[in-house]
């Protein structure tokens, strides 16, 4: 009989015999299985609702944050256009010494309700128009355009002199002309000159339609939004706890190992406080070693096609991520192994986690000097395990000589999509450029839920601790 026929016979034998289920009790599961499964389904439904609720809350929070940021940016731009820019065109001849020309103001077609003025059509300046400007002036700055018009801009935070106060002395216009020219009105001239600080008198030529922003130093703006990119390293460690002492043969699981992180975020600076939300991808690594002994049993021996004895067995191990079995087989001939002999086993497992993290938090500026700032920060996050790779090395020794080994790469899917909340505390150093900010951040964090599924009997749990060091480049929106 050929080996193929033997195989077919064996296969058919098992198929035919195992197709008979019989009516004995050995292949009947206990009653609790169905009930437990149904309870699990119900729990999952509840959890799903909870998950969607959290996701909805987070989405609304982020959407609200973005809306608030954009709204504030718009408000800021509006404010800048109101308070920092007022352009009044005055025909050159109106300022000419001794000239009789009427002073005209070039009122802007884009003049908004708060009185921002840009040059366009000319209108005679009347007391009413100036009154309606409602400009808490702030410091007028003269600029001269190439077309020989003068632009009067106001600049916040430099003066409290009110333009209205100056123009109170201007007489109502008749037929589009002031009753008196500036030259003819020494008090007005004096007030204008007094109100204008000498550095501002340096006439700066601008184009007629240029947007002139007084005090364009945006650092005066107290509230800013930023989009930033982060990249850096993760030092991670998994610490295990249990009701009972952990197995003594589990070694080196709580060391710190290097990984990486990158992502993007949105932040909002308001005074000393910065609020931020960020999405990042990270990889963390953990290694553990499990040392044990196995007893040689002839029962696990079989002959290969050459008639050589092969030893094959499963060995059970633990790791911070999950306990599992690993098969090992080796040629038993020449190893001088007898029934009951002990073999030393060493299992090294490298767990590589891939996490997707969503963090929200705030930082508070505790020190600042010039363009530098140091802040303390705190954040909370949700991390989902998107992938877990396990690189397993199993070595079997007899009297310190290697007798068998196995190598395997696994993708352990049982922890996929497991949500792990976390909290972080840290310090951040920021350096401000014109439109960019560079920050160096270091945080310490811990997971609030066990990475591995908690064994109900032993209560073995694994917490992840992370030290993150990141560089962030932020662009001011």
């Amino acid at each position, binding site marked *: 009989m050929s080996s193929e026929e*033997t*195989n077919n016979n*064996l*296969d058919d034998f*098992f*198929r035919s*015999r*195992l197709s*008979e*289920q*019989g009516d*004995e009790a*050995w*292949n*009947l*599961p*206990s009653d*609790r*299985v*169905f009930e*437990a*499964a*149904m309870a*699990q*389904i119900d729990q*999952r439904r509840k959890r799903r609702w909870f998950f969607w609720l959290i996701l909805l809350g987070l989405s609304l929070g982020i959407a609200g944050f973005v809306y608030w940021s954009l709204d504030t940016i718009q408000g800021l731009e509006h404010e800048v256009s109101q308070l920092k820019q007022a352009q009044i065109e005055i025909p050159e001849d109106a300022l000419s010494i001794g000239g009789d020309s009427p002073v005209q103001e070039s009122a802007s077609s884009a003049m908004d309700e708060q009185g921002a003025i840009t040059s366009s059509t000319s209108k005679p300046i009347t007391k009413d128009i100036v009154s309606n400007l409602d400009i808490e002036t702030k410091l007028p700055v003269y600029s001269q355009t190439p077309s020989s018009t003068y632009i009067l801009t106001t600049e916040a935070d430099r003066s409290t002199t009110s333009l209205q106060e100056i123009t109170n002395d201007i007489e109502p216009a008749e037929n589009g002309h002031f009753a008196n020219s500036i030259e003819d009105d020494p008090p007005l001239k004096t007030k204008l000159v007094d109100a204008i600080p000498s550095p501002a008198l340096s006439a700066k030529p601008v184009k007629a339609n240029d947007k002139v922003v007084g005090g364009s130093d945006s650092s005066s703006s107290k509230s800013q939004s930023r989009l930033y990119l982060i990249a850096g390293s993760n030092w991670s460690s998994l610490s295990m706890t249990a009701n009972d002492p952990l*197995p003594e043969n589990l070694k080196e699981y709580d060391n710190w190992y290097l990984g990486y992180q990158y992502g993007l975020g949105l932040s909002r600076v308001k005074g000393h406080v910065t609020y931020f939300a960020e999405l990042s991808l990270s990889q963390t690594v953990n290694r553990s070693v499990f040392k044990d002994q196995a007893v040689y049993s002839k*029962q*696990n021996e*079989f*002959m*290969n*096609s050459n008639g050589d004895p*092969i030893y*094959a*067995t*499963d060995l*059970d191990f*633990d790791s911070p991520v*999950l*306990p*599992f*079995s690993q*098969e090992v*087989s080796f040629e038993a001939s020449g190893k001088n192994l007898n029934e009951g002999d002990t073999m030393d086993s060493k299992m090294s497992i490298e767990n590589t986690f891939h996490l997707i993290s969503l963090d929200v938090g705030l930082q508070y500026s505790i020190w600042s000097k010039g363009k530098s700032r140091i802040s303390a920060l705190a954040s909370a996050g949700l991390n989902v395990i998107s992938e877990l790779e*396990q690189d397993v090395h199993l070595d079997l020794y007899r009297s310190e000589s290697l007798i068998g080994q196995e190598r*395997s*790469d*696994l*993708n*352990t*899917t*049982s922890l996929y999509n497991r949500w792990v909340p976390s909290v972080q505390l840290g310090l951040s150093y920021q350096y401000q450029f014109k439109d960019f900010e560079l920050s160096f951040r270091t945080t310490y964090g811990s997971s609030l839920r066990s990475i591995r*599924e908690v*064994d109900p*009997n*032993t209560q073995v749990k694994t917490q992840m601790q992370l030290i993150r060091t990141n560089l962030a480049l932020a662009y001011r929106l």
Partner: protein
Amino acid sequence: MTEVQLIKAAKKNQRKAQSVLYDTYKRKWFSICLRYLKGSTDAEDALQNALVKIFSNIKTFDAKRGSFNAWSSRIVVNECLMLLRGRIHGFKHVDIDNQQHLEDLSESPLDRLSARELTALISALPTGYRAVFNLYVLDGYNHREIAEQLGITEGTSKSQLFKARRMLMEKLEVLI
């Protein structure tokens, strides 16, 4: 109530229909688990996980693409493989059940070996051999599919099958 009606009702989350379906298939599903896993505790855990998957995803079952038996059995096999890849056995695992089965077998002639005894023989194989033998011989997977399922090469699958058959033959020879 026909099976089609039962499945339709189970899709609407009717607990009674789910219970009847379970009663119909529980022996078959549990036999699969016992073939793949050592001990009835692991097998029950796998079955429980499989039931959660089956009744959570029953809406996706399409009778035009195959029978409920084949669809559900595949889920059970997948759950067993999940547990084989990384299963909590506790810090020290002693498989008393299997030792008991083997002792029972020692007095059985080949032609009188029951399904239970043969299942015990298979479950006593090392994990890799057991998985490949079950998938190839009893559940109809080919070596390419097994390689994908277990994350091994086709060559490894073939050699594991060879070793599994050899080991079973030896155990059977000892018994007769």
